[in-house]
């Protein structure tokens, strides 16, 4: 009985999002009220979804419901099980926090040229679409919700459409979303061909030959990968995320990518079943490539939001490494380790949602306060916006996978799964897994380097432009949402056992085995395989750092009766007065890494010497190699094909009707 209640709660969350998109439209004349109302309803729906998802995750049963809407022979199937409950929890949580952040953030749009009507309308539809994707239990409603999510987010990306680069970014995004949707149609189509119906239950019962299963897997991998942003399908991400309003970027990056990961897990583990290790290898390799390339590209960015978008590619890569490991172990019947790797991937989904939203919220606060998105013009913001600065620091430490914060726990679990590689007894796989572990290690270290750069350039040092001096901490709602997320990052880092125990229901449902050993030794110890193999006592580590700090402080301070600190100009080896242009810039900071990994990017570097009375100019452009290698040729090919086939486009309506008629005839002939 309880469980149907969870589903009903989740459905009411969907209704609330739809209300939040529609109701404010009645108050178009009063934009202030309109924004408030929309975010209020959105916040409530987020909390509702959060509680519904949490209930489903805790109760660990699965129940489905058929809604008598839709086409007569195609009812809408909804279902809530621990997997969708977990993702519903993530989406709901971030939606709620974004709703706290939103009202103050959109204040700058109110009174501007743009009406916020589209923003409130499509935010509600976007969130509602995501909820529905998670609840859908038949291919038809899944695809409908999926497209709703894609299209609504397109309108959010293009919201500030007066700038041509925003329109360009949104167009690329829409294009990729359409292609991704087409691949998903094909993937579900293959499954539907072998089953008697569109519902997931029927698809699960279908028997596919290994060839057809691999074909379906390939389509799903590309389709969901396009939305998740794996390399080389990531190109829309760094374009679309920076131009959307910041709370939308946070939700797209933190949450929408996770919905794609959910779709992939649902499709592969639940609908296809019979995972083969070859699929796992593909996922593992693509994940490793995404992780390393994502972080390397991020290092070269100096637009803060674009940098964060590239880090999403990296983190999706880390999630896919976990999934790949899990699939390999699952296919070779090491179910406990498969469960461990799956839990690691899911835990990282949660962590990434938390810290990436936190970082985007911080970037949004800076953008609102200083109208700057270029890191080279920031600096010294920790003195101007302390609350944002400390929350952002928490986000930086978490995303760099440093203990005792949450990012470390999920990477630690992934490493522990990878270290069980020798169980596999196969040369190829045995060699593959250490390489993936090495890539993950490299990714972690480079991410830390990147966030030292971000924090050092943006928040420390001296201001590099006058606008930065006028910045101050944003209003209460924006501060609150950042503090909430920072607390979550610390909480999920210090108490991993509780989280792992809660997630454990998902592998129990999908793989048939959970990872009860991980949390058998009490709340203090996380022991993924057994206590002798590895253990991590996160609360004790946190406590240890605090105690050491306190002891050192107490020990050092009584030595002198007066511990005054003298403030003086910086010494800098006695080189005379400093100014802000003498500091290291973001590009200079990343220069050694740019030289070491120079084969990854297309680097255009040029120094224009100073003319008479002028200044010298240093020009540096770093391009995505994949864009030129993959997308430009495809684009050219498409144009060529379009040119060749354009003669059938005569402009005559009757000819077009003829085309439709003969296509229909052809299809009828094929089917009957």
């Amino acid at each position: 009985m309880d469980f149907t209640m969870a589903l009903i709660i989740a459905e009411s969350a969907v209704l609330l999002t739809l209300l939040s998109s529609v109701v404010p439209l009645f108050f178009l004349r009063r934009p202030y009220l309109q924004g408030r109302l929309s975010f209020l309803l959105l916040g409530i729906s987020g909390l509702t979804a959060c509680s519904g998802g949490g209930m489903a995750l805790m109760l660990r049963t699965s129940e489905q419901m058929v809604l008598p809407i839709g086409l007569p022979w195609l009812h809408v199937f909804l279902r809530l099980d621990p997997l969708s409950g977990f993702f519903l929890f993530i989406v709901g949580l971030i939606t709620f926090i974004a709703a706290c952040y939103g009202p103050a953030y959109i204040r700058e749009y109110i009174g501007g040229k743009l009406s916020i009507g589209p923003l409130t309308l499509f935010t509600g539809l976007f969130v509602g679409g995501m909820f529905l994707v998670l609840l859908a239990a038949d291919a038809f409603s899944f695809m409908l919700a999926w497209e709703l999510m894609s299209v609504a987010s397109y309108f959010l990306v293009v919201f500030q459409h007066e700038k041509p680069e925003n329109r360009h970014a949104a167009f690329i995004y829409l294009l990729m979303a359409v292609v991704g949707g087409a691949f998903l149609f094909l993937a579900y189509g293959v499954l539907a061909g072998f089953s008697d119906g569109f519902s997931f239950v029927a698809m699960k019962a279908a028997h596919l030959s290994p060839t057809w299963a691999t074909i379906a897997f390939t389509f799903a991998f590309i389709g969901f990968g396009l939305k998740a942003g794996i390399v080389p399908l990531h190109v829309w991400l760094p374009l679309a995320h920076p131009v959307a309003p910041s709370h939308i970027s946070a939700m797209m990056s933190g949450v929408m990518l996770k919905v794609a990961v959910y779709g992939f897990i649902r499709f592969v583990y639940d609908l296809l079943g019979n995972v083969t290790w070859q699929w796992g290898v593909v996922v593992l390799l693509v994940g490793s490539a995404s992780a390393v390339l994502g972080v390397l590209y991020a290092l070269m960015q100096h637009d803060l939001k674009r940098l964060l978008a590239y880090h999403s590619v990296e983190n999706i890569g880390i999630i896919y490494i976990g999934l790949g490991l899990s699939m390999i172990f699952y296919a070779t019947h090491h179910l406990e380790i498969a469960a461990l790797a799956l839990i690691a991937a899911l835990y990282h989904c949660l962590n990434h949602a938390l810290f990436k939203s936190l970082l985007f919220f911080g970037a949004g606060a800076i953008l609102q306060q200083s109208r700057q998105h270029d890191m080279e013009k920031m600096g010294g913001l920790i003195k101007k916006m302390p609350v944002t600065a400390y929350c952002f620091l928490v986000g930086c430490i978490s995303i760099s996978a440093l203990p005792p914060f949450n990012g470390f726990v999920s990477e630690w679990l992934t490493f522990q799964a990878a270290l069980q590689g020798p169980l596999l007894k196969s040369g190829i796989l045995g060699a593959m897994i250490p390489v993936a572990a090495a890539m993950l290690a490299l990714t972690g270290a480079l991410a830390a380097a990147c966030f030292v750069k971000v924090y050092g350039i943006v928040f420390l040092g001296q201001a590099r432009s006058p606008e930065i001096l006028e910045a101050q901490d944003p209003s209460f709602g924006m501060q609150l949402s950042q503090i909430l997320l920072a607390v979550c990052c610390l909480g999920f880092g210090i108490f991993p056992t509780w989280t792992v125990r809660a997630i454990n229901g998902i592998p129990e449902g999908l793989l048939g085995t959970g990872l009860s050993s991980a949390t058998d030794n009490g709340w203090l110890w996380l022991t993924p395989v057994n206590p002798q193999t590895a253990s991590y006592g996160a609360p004790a580590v946190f406590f240890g750092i605090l105690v050491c700090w306190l002891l050192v402080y107490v020990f050092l301070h009584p030595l002198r009766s007066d511990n005054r600190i003298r403030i003086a100009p910086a010494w800098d080896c006695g080189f005379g007065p400093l100014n802000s242009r003498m500091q290291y810039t973001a590009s200079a900071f990343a220069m050694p890494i740019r030289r070491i990994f120079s084969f990854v990017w297309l680097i255009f570097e040029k120094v224009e010497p100073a003319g008479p009375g002028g200044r010298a100019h240093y020009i540096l452009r770093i391009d995505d190699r994949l864009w030129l290698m993959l997308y430009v040729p495809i684009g050219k090919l498409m144009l060529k094909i379009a040119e060749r086939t354009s003669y059938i486009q005569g402009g005559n309506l009757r000819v077009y009707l003829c085309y439709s008629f003969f296509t229909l005839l052809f299809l009828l002939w094929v089917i009957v």
Partner: protein
Amino acid sequence: MTGFLWAIAQTFCVVLAAPLMAGWVKWLKCRLQNRKGPPPWQPYRDLLRLSRKHVVLADTASPIFRMAPYIVFSVTILAVSTVPVITVQLPVAALADVIALVGFLALGRFFLSLAGMDVGTAFGGMGSSREVTIASLAEPALLMAFFTLAMNVSSTNLSTVICQLAQRDITLYPSLIFSSMGLILVAIAETGRIPIDNPATHLELTMIHEAIILEYSGRHLALMEWAAMLKLTLFSLLIVNVIVPWGVALTLVPGDLALAALIVTGKLLVWGMILAVSETIQAKMRLFRAPQYLGLAFILSLLGMMSHIILEV
């Protein structure tokens, strides 16, 4: 409970002895270079002098700059506390395994590099940039070396690793040889020694660690210096106890512990000599040669892991 007391006592001893290790290497190096050199206990005098001095803080510094020494020092202590020094019977080692150990060091480095950028001088940013570049190559190599060890004994718990290695018969394991070589190379880079960094230089073209702590003074500088010495001792301990694990006490019997303490001291002194000799006969590398050096360390560690999987499973 006694285990925890032993662990705290052991950590305390290592923290106190760390300046001596640094002083010992420095004294030996001076002797090898025909200089008289300060006595090995000179670092204690320096630390005491620094901790008595006033702190002079740059006017552009933020609270991060003042927090960083305490955080760097604390996490280094925490990292030391997880390393078995004289005995493997430590409950602390279960709190954090080798991956967490690498994580602690990375957390310390994160704050160290932030501190370098905080004041807004050119030197600080330069030092931080170089530090994170070197670290981003050294850390994966270090993790790979540890992973090879971990796969060998199927545990990432450092106590278990050392315990099992010490109990094995002396046979040649290719994986252990490769990963040990990788570990030594990384240890030299991570502790800022020649040929990657030179702890004795203040020349702007070459310095890394010294550039970061240039603006520190008084007790903050003392903490930063002490943390660096502690890190040197930590890596020395890792090398001597992992590569030559014999002599570490497997029980908590006082007699064994005393013997183990003697043996560990001896091993550390010998490692100090090796370090001093290697620093005397080598010159510092150019910064952009460092990737090759660290790449070698990475490849060695990876080879170790491959050879474990292919030859030894």
